[in-house]
């Protein structure tokens, strides 16, 4: 399924990044995510939402977030979560199942 999507590029990655204010870890995570997506995915192949829980803390409960920063891959299913500042590019790519050979 996901293979087909990636081949024809029909379904973009939908990513949500939960951060809490401008902490070093949050800032690092945002920067790392943008870099990884920019380098390994073409434009339009991904969609990033950054949610600052400091602004809307109730979302932590609604979206069941515990750790900060948390990256959630909403699409394609199944939902996948990565916690941490995303400093290891390879691990992020594996976890998001992004085929880097292309």
């Amino acid at each position: 399924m996901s293979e087909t999507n990636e081949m024809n590029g029909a379904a973009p990655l939908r990513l949500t990044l939960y951060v809490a204010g401008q902490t070093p870890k949050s800032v690092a995570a945002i920067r790392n995510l943008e870099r990884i997506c920019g380098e390994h995915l073409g434009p339009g192949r991904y969609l990033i939402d950054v949610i600052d829980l400091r602004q809307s803390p109730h979302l932590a409960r609604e979206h069941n977030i515990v750790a900060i920063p948390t990256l959630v891959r909403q699409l394609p299913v199944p939902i996948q979560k990565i916690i941490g500042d995303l400093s290891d590019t390879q691990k992020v790519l594996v976890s998001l199942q992004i085929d880097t050979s292309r």
Partner: protein
Amino acid sequence: MAAGVQKVPTGIEGFDDLTLGGLPRGRPTLVCGSAGCGKTLFASTFLAKGARDHGENGVFVSFEERPDDIVDNVASLGFGFDELIADGRIFIEHITINPAELAEVGDYDLEALFMRLELAVEAVGAKRIVLDTIESLFSAFTNVAVLRAEIRRLFDWLKERGLTAVITGERGEGALTRQGLEEYVSDCVVLLDHRVENQVSTRRLRIVKYRGTAHGTNEYPFLIAADGFSVLPVSALGLGHMVHEGRISSGIPDLDDMLTGGGFHRGSSILLSGVAGSGKSSIAASFLAAACAAGERALYFSFEESGAQTVRNMRSIGLDLGRYVENGQLSMHASRPTFYSLEMHLAIMLRDVARMQPSLVVLDPISAFLDAGDHRDVQAMLLRVIDYLKSHGITGLFTHLSHEHGSVQTDAGLSSLMDAWVLLLNREANGEFNRELYLLKARGISHSNQVREFVMTDHGISLIRPYLGEQGALTGSARRAEEARLRREQAQRRLDAEVVEQRLEQRRRRTLAQIDALRAELEAEELEFRSVAEGRRRFDAQAQSDRLAMAKSRRAQAADVGDE
């Protein structure tokens, strides 16, 4: 008690007594134990009672069970958890982490968890919080260094907020908790245990530490029953028994009379021992009826027969216990000794006593426990019961089934615990058994030394006057035979006296008759004498007159002569 430690009542029956007030206010308490030992229930009770009875709202942070399950689990206990939630007094925060969908890349913290807790606490203005169980985090996250730092921060956060917290933890190998949570909680640690011995399971609670305050250090059995979690501090914390001067009636006036002053000391422990069928339960029932008739409350623990059966059986000796059961003065609890462990029995008994506050408690029979447990354990248990009853001024009546007739030795261990001991004998003599009763001891009361026979009739129990025959005290038909013999003797003596009296009467009558005869004879003789005398007198008179007549005639002749 240290001035610095303020306490928050948990509302868990018994626990607050044990800790002299409850859990440390504004501090975390670790409640640990193996699976299924009641940690979550302890925590739920703490929250529910806090919100309902102490005006302290709470947050339940569940890392395992879903909120619906938590509500369902305690629904039967009548806490009204769902209502408290609806009223905004309890808030359930469910935190789930599925490790399968989680990857860790780089540095992170649990800031979102703190935010959620913050929101939850603010939502209800919580003063209490439960974390059940925070150890789940260890299976979700692999970076232990981060986790430990965050947990430490969490405990600091709880203290900063002044939240009284209950943190549950799973019992680990050789440590209180698997993840060493005890190192973060330095104020109060409670250990719950669930053990099976001789196929009987017992739950026990121990306060491992409680900084800055006195507390009971023993293991205390606790019970999860229909009405929730109750712990019982079963050993008295002191020996400061109150001494009661009043007396309590046995319901058998004759027995009361055997004790100088009438009846047993209130608050004393009374042992009723005897072989099977010697009337232990009946006398116990008589005590119960007497206490109820005096307007007091009584509690009856039966380990052999059901309450309904006791009520029925006692009707046959004219004791209507059913009436008192209905109006609530008498409470009957029947359970097999093997149903619970000794400590659990003890815990339940003490709990019921504490709830009902009776003036008389009957355990019938305590010997049933000897089959369920070790002799020494039974004695220790009874000691606790007696201590508890005494310290509350409650009279305790214990029946004991002895297997040997009039056996005193087997009960030696119990004897020292008892203030009074009524020995029931069922003695065989002349081919029949008769019930006898003897006051072996009664501390502080001078008492009769007689062995008394007692009979059970449909009017109740009564003692028969001591009957001393030629070979000692007589009972039963021997007594009746002796009485009959005496009656016969008396009759005989009466008969003899009558014969003597009749004989005397006859003699008197005979004598009187003789007197009459003699008197008659005398009268006859007097009559004869009088007639003779009359004859004589008449003869004399006639003679005189004759002489005079003669003289007259002679004078006439002489005068003629003379005159001439």
